[in-house]
């Protein structure tokens, strides 16, 4: 029964072949060595990962296969003497790095979405919990109530009022009273606000969030609108990967939220309420039992897709 067989193999003389063999054996078939560097006695081999993923359009039941190219998610050190491995990233650490890097790319959609959705952020039900100073100030200005700097300071409103001034919706008069600018009055006359004070104040708050999101969340520690931003990102992350305004289920949005924001402060209750409120704010739309995106926002976000390191798999068309 025994059979002797000779096979001709390559003699491993270069670090790349040695690295490919170690990567396939230890980490998986999706890994390739990056640019190999000479470190004296050793070769430093960064690990690049080509990570396949799929996105479903639930309505049409079509799937697209995509590949993420994640560079330098781990490394190997090979001894020059015998091309043996001296040091390497642990498989668990490599997987953790891959997850974090992918979540990072997904979150890059977040900043573009914040800019693209503009005034819509102001229409979330919980947004005004933390943006009340801006909302009340705009409402007062449109009702011809002009607070002084001291009054605003006493109510602790000055930080958000300063942002209104920076954006050009309010200004202090020579008498030290706050007044509405023509820009704010123009906003009030738009089709969106219909001369309504409350709608104008909400739109104004939305624009404020859109312009100063990082400052509001990181410096002023305001976060009542953050769930809407994250829910929007959980939808548009998939929709941008797919390249179309697709329909996905609520469950998929929840799954994405947990994946993209793993490690973030965990407020894991009220998912359904948050999704409903995001729909009411006009950031995503309800389409039967599915959730779909807003055409205007999606068009604005399409540019962001170009910067993501993904390619569509050739087998997408086969399935």
């Amino acid at each position, binding site marked *: *029964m*025994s*059979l*002797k*067989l*000779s*096979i*001709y*193999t*390559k*003699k*491993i*003389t270069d670090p*790349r*072949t040695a690295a*490919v*063999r170690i990567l*396939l*054996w*230890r*980490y*998986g*078939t*999706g*890994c*390739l060595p990056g640019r190999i560097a000479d470190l004296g006695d050793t070769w430093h081999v960064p690990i690049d*990962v*080509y*990570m*396949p*993923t799929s996105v479903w359009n639930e309505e049409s039941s079509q799937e697209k296969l995509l*590949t993420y*190219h994640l560079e330098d998610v781990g490394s190997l050190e090979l001894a020059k003497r015998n091309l043996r491995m001296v040091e390497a990233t642990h*498989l668990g650490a*490599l*997987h953790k790095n*891959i*997850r974090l890097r992918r979540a990072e790319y997904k979150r890059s959609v977040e900043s573009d979405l914040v800019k693209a959705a503009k005034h819509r952020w102001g229409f979330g039900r919980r947004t005004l919990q933390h943006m009340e100073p801006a909302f009340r100030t705009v409402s007062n200005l449109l009702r011809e109530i002009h607070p002084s700097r001291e009054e605003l300071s006493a109510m602790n409103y000055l930080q958000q009022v300063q942002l209104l001034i920076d954006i050009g919706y309010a200004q202090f008069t020579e008498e030290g009273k706050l007044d509405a600018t023509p820009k704010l009055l123009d906003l009030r006359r738009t089709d969106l606000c219909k001369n309504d004070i409350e709608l104008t104040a909400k739109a104004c708050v939305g624009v404020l969030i859109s312009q100063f999101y990082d400052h509001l969340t990181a410096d002023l520690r305001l976060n009542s609108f953050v769930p809407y931003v994250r829910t929007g990102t959980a939808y548009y992350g998939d929709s941008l990967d797919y390249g179309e305004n697709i329909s996905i289920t609520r469950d998929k949005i929840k799954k994405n939220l947990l994946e993209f924001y793993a490690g973030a402060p965990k407020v894991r209750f009220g998912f359904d309420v948050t999704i409903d409120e995001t729909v009411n704010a006009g950031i995503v739309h309800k389409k039967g039992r599915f959730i779909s995106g807003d055409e205007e926002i999606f068009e604005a976000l399409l540019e962001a897709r170009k910067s993501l390191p993904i*390619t569509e*798999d*050739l*087998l997408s068309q*086969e*399935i």
Partner: protein
Amino acid sequence: MVSMYWRREKPLLDWKMAEDPNAPEWNEFYQQGCKYVSHLSGVPLRKIASYLKSVQLPLAMKLVSLHGVYALESLTRANILPIVLFDFYFYHKGVPKNPSHAAIVMEVTAENILTVDPSFINKERTAYYRVEFEKSWKILENHAIVIYPKAYRLKEIERTAKPLESYMGVMP
């Protein structure tokens, strides 16, 4: 798929699996094997080797960097079907982007590499053009997985890729 092939080809070995590929044991074997596939970095091949050991099949696995397509040819002639790893995207588009593609080589002809490619729903033979295949296989340094009966003795003969001039001192 390769294990099923060996089950049929070498029925006298110490098999604990049924010959019928539709038997429930094979289903379990397949499902257990799928647990080793990581969607993040692909399949670490050492896990396949340890899996074959754990299920007590009379098969062994080797990861080899073959010297060229002719080495594939000699394997298929000996009825050993290697699993080649190559860049599928590079094969079609000329850009390296999808290194984790694998196919079972059935036959090597002057123009084609005939394979069974499990990526396609249709499990019939898929022919890859030899020249393009060689280039996309080279990205993974001609690596192939060889699964063979433990009773076989596989001897690796190492060949350098240096040209003749390097031995004559003309090239470094």
